[in-house]
C-alpha cells in the first residue's frame, strides 16, 4: 500500500460488516463462552432445572439432606476458622516486618511468602506423616517418651485442617497488610503523637482504621480459597468423615459413575460454591473501593518503627521457629519419608535409600506418566491461556467495539469460579452432551486448566496492556500498519513481560494442580497431583512422598528461574 495519496485514487474500503475488531471480539467471547460460561451455565441448569422445569424447592431439599448440609456446615466452619487464624497470623507478621525494628526484616518478608509457592496438599501429606494419631512421627515420639497411648495432637480433625490451611493461606493477609502499612504516610501517626496521643491510642485510632480495609480484603481472600479448597480436606478430613463442599463434589462424582442423583447433588453444591465465591469477591471489591483513602498513597514512605528492645531477639527466634515449624519441618519430612525403604521405619540413615526416587522417575509408568502429563498439560495450558488472555485483555482494555460489555462480564467469570466447579462443569459439557466426548482423555483436563487459569492470564495481561498507551498503537496505524501488524509489531513486544508472567503464573501452579485433575483424570491421564494423592490413598506413602519431593524440586527450580528471568528483564 502506497503511503502517499494519489490524486483521484478511489481506494475507499467499505464499512466492513465483519472487521478485525469483530473477529477479535467474537473470538474472545467464543473462548470464554466455551471454556467457562457453558460449564458454569450447565451446572446451574442441572441444579435448578428438574425435568425441564425451574425448581428451586428441590435445590433446598438437596441442600437440607444430611450429608450436603453437613458439607456446607463444614465448609463454613473450616473457612471461618482458617480466616480467623490466618488473619491473626498474617496481620501479626505483617506488622512485625513493616513496623518494628526486627532484625533481618527483608529476609523474613521473603520467607513468609514461601508458603504461597508450596502446594498445600503436599503440606497436608507431611503433617499426616508427622501428626497422624497412631503413625505420626511426632505423636509416636511423644507417646514413646511419655509412655502413653494418647497422641499429642490428632491432625485428622477440624483443628488439624484449620492449622494446615492457615500455614498456606496466611500470606494473603500478610501481603495486603504489609503493603498497606508500608504505604501509609507516617506523618499521620507523627502528628497524632505530637498532639499528645500515646502509641496505644495512635494504633487504635489511626493505624488500625487505616489498615482495616487491607486486613478485611486479605481475610476475604483466605475465606474464598478455603471455601473452595480440596487438597487439605481430602488428605486430612475425608479419612474421619469430614467433608467440605469440594470434597463432597469429588466423592459424589467418583462414587456415582453417572448416577443422576449424585451428579445433581454435586451440581447443587457447585452452584452454592459459585454463588459464595461471587459474593465474597463482591464484598472484597466493596471493602477495597471504600478503603481507598487518600492517606494510603502510592508512594513508599519510611514508616516509624517500633523499638522492640528486649523483645527483639525473642521475636526473631519466634519468627524463625514459625518458619522452621511450618516450612522446613514438612519439607524435610517429605524428603525423609521419600527416602525410606518402608513407611513406618524410624527416620535414620540406615533405613534410607535413593531407590524410591529412581523407581518413580525411571521405572514406574504410573509416576513417569504423571510427570510427563503434568509437564505437557501445564505447558500447553500455559501457552494457550497466555495467548487467549492477551487477545481477550486486548479487546477489553484497548478496543472500543459494540458488545464489549458482555465480554467484560464474561472476563470476570473465571475469577469467581473455583476449581472443583470448573472441573464438574467441564465434565458436564464435554462428555458427549454436545457431540464431543473427551472424557477420560488429557484434552478434558487441558480445557479445564485453561478455564481455571484464565483469570491469572487476564490479570497479568491486562495489567501489562494498560501500560501500553493507545497512542502507540494509533501511531502504528497512522504509519500504515493494519490492526494485526500493529498488534504484532507494537503491542505484543511491549506486553511480552506480562505474557511471560502469565505463562509462569499458569505453568507452575498447573504442575502441582490437584482439584481439577482429580475430578477429570482417567487411567492414563494422571497428573503429578493426582498421582501423589492416589498413591497416598493406596497406602504407597513412601512413593507419594518421593513424588511430592520431585514436585517440590520442580516448583522451587521454576520459581527460581522466573525470579532470575525477571531480574534480567528489569535490568534491560
Amino acid at each position: 500500500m502506497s503511503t502517499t495519496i494519489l490524486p483521484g485514487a478511489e481506494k475507499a474500503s467499505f464499512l466492513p460488516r465483519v472487521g478485525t475488531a469483530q473477529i477479535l471480539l467474537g473470538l474472545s467471547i467464543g473462548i470464554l463462552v466455551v471454556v467457562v460460561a457453558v460449564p458454569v451455565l450447565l451446572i446451574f441448569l442441572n441444579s435448578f432445572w428438574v425435568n425441564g422445569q425451574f425448581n428451586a424447592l428441590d435445590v433446598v431439599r438437596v441442600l437440607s439432606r444430611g450429608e450436603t448440609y453437613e458439607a456446607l456446615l463444614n465448609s463454613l466452619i473450616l473457612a471461618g476458622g482458617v480466616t480467623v487464624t490466618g488473619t491473626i497470623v498474617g496481620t501479626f507478621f505483617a506488622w512485625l516486618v513493616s513496623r518494628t525494628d526486627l532484625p533481618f526484616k527483608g529476609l523474613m518478608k521473603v520467607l513468609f511468602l514461601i508458603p504461597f509457592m508450596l502446594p498445600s496438599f503436599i503440606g497436608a501429606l507431611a503433617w499426616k506423616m508427622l501428626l497422624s494419631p497412631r503413625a505420626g512421627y511426632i505423636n509416636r515420639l511423644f507417646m514413646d517418651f511419655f509412655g502413653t497411648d494418647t497422641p499429642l495432637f490428632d491432625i485428622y480433625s477440624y483443628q488439624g485442617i484449620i492449622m494446615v490451611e492457615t500455614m498456606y493461606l496466611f500470606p494473603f493477609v500478610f501481603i495486603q497488610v504489609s503493603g498497606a502499612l508500608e504505604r501509609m504516610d507516617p506523618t499521620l501517626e507523627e502528628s497524632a503523637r505530637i498532639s499528645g496521643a500515646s502509641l496505644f491510642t495512635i494504633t487504635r485510632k489511626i493505624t488500625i482504621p487505616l489498615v482495616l480495609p487491607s486486613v478485611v480484603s486479605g481475610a476475604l481472600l483466605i475465606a474464598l480459597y478455603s471455601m473452595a479448597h480440596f487438597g487439605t480436606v481430602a488428605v486430612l478430613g475425608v479419612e474421619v468423615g469430614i467433608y467440605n463442599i469440594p470434597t463432597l463434589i469429588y466423592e459424589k462424582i467418583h462414587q456415582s459413575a453417572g448416577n443422576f442423583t449424585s451428579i445433581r447433588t454435586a451440581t447443587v453444591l457447585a452452584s452454592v460454591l459459585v454463588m459464595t465465591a461471587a459474593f465474597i469477591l463482591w464484598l472484597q471489591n466493596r471493602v477495597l473501593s471504600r478503603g481507598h483513602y487518600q492517606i494510603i498513597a502510592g508512594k513508599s514512605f519510611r514508616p516509624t518503627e517500633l523499638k522492640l528492645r528486649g523483645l527483639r531477639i525473642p521475636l526473631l527466634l519466634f519468627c524463625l521457629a514459625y518458619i522452621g515449624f511450618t516450612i522446613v519441618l514438612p519439607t524435610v519430612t517429605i524428603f525423609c519419608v521419600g527416602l525410606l525403604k518402608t513407611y513406618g521405619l524410624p527416620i535414620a540413615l540406615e533405613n534410607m535409600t535413593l531407590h524410591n526416587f529412581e523407581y518413580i522417575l525411571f521405572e514406574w509408568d504410573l509416576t513417569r506418566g504423571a510427570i510427563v502429563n503434568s509437564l505437557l498439560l501445564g505447558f500447553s495450558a500455559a501457552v494457550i491461556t497466555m495467548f487467549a488472555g492477551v487477545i481477550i485483555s486486548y479487546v477489553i482494555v484497548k478496543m472500543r467495539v459494540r458488545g464489549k460489555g458482555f465480554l467484560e462480564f464474561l472476563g470476570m467469570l473465571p475469577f469467581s469460579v473455583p476449581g472443583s466447579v470448573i472441573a464438574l462443569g467441564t465434565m458436564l459439557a464435554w462428555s458427549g452432551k454436545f457431540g464431543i466426548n473427551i472424557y477420560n482423555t488429557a484434552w478434558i483436563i487441558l480445557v479445564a486448566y485453561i478455564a481455571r487459569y484464565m483469570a491469572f492470564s487476564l490479570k497479568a495481561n491486562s495489567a501489562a496492556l494498560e501500560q501500553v498507551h493507545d497512542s502507540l498503537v494509533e501511531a502504528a496505524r497512522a504509519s500504515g500498519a493494519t490492526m494485526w501488524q500493529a498488534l504484532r509489531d507494537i503491542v505484543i513486544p511491549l506486553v511480552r513481560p506480562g505474557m511471560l508472567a502469565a505463562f509462569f503464573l499458569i505453568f507452575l501452579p498447573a504442575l502441582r494442580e490437584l482439584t481439577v485433575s482429580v475430578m477429570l483424570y482417567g487411567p492414563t491421564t494422571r497428573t503429578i497431583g493426582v498421582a501423589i494423592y492416589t498413591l497416598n490413598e493406596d497406602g504407597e506413602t513412601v512413593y507419594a512422598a518421593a513424588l511430592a519431593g520431585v514436585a517440590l524440586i520442580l516448583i522451587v527450580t521454576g520459581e527460581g528461574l522466573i525470579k532470575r528471568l525477571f531480574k534480567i528483564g528489569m535490568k534491560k
Partner: protein
Amino acid sequence: MANVTIENVCKRFGARTVLDGLSLAVDDGECFTLLGPSGCGKSVLMRLIAGFEAPESGTIAIGGRAVADPARGILVPPDRRGLGMVFQDYAVWPHMTVAENVAYPLKIAGTEAAARAEATRRAVAMVGLAGLEERLPSQLSGGQQQRVALARALVSEPRLLVLDEPLNNLDANLREEMRFEIKALQRTLGITVLYVTHDQEIALGIADRLAVMDGQGHLRQIGTPEEIYERPADAFVFRFMGIANFLPVRRQGDGWVAGEAGVPWTGPPPQRPDALLAAGFRPSDVTLAREGVGMPATVRRASFLGASVDYLIEIGGTLVRAALPSHDCLSRGLLFAEGEACRVALDGVQWFAGGALEGGAA
C-alpha cells in the same frame, strides 16, 4: 493534492454531541491550525480526519478522495489514509531504536532495504538527530523524542501531516524552537499541515490560516492570523487571542458613558445602534496620562515587570488591565502608585454586543 474537505460532520459519544454539522476546508500546501480551548472537540476532529474515529454523518475527503462518508458506507481505516501523524505524547515506541521507529512506516509499506535506510537517514538528519539512530527512546529527552515522532511522520513523505498538540509537553524554549522547525519543514516540503492546539501564541506563529473553535465544537472564525487577531468575529475569539479587557459602554442622552458608574466616554463613539455595548481592547491598547483628555480612572495595582509595567485600573467601577512599556513610563513620568488618579485613552477598540461582558476581563 492534499486538501482536506470536511462537510457537515457530526460526532457523538453516547448522548454527548461533540461536533454538530461542522464544515471546514483546508487548502493544499497550507499550514492550517485548529485553535480552541481544551475539551472543545478539536482533537476529535483530528482523530476523525486520521481515521481513529468514525463520524455519525457528513463527509471527510482528503485530496479529493472520500475517507469517511457514512451515507455511502465509506470508512477508510487509518492505515490507508496515507497521512503522517504526531501525537501529543509523542507515541515513540519504547522498544525500538530511533532508526527503527523512523523506518517503521517504510517497513510496513514494503520499501526495499537500501531505499529505506537512505530515507530513514534523511528523515533523521532533517529533524537534527543524526548520530542518535541507535539510541532507545528512554535515552532521549522529551524534545528529541518529539523529533523522532516528527521524523517518523515525515519519512514516507505524506502529503498531509497531522499534529495533535505536539509541543504541549515541551518546555517554553524548546516549544519555540520546534515551532520554527515545523514551519520550516512545512515550507521546504510543501506539504499540507494540520495543527491542533489550545495555545494561541503557537497558533498565530505557525499558521497560514487558522480556525477558532469554541467549547461547544462550533467554529467561530476562520482566517489568517492577522485577520483573527485584528478583526475577531466575536467576543469569544477576541478573548481567546490573549488577555482581553471588556469595558461596558452605554448610551446616555446624546453621548456615551463607560463603566458601571458611568464616566464620560472620550473615544470615538461606537457606530452601532445598541444601547449597551462592550468595548474590547488589549492591555497594550491602553495609554495613560496624568491629566488632560481621557476617561478619569484610578490605579488599583501596579507591578513593574521589567520590560513593561502592568497596571490594574478602575474606570467608573470596572477593572481593566493595562501594560505600558517601561521606557515610556520612566521617561514620561508615568510610574503610577496604587490609588493615584490618571486619565485613560484607548486605541483600536473592538465593539461587541453587551452580552460579551459576562465573564469579565480574562
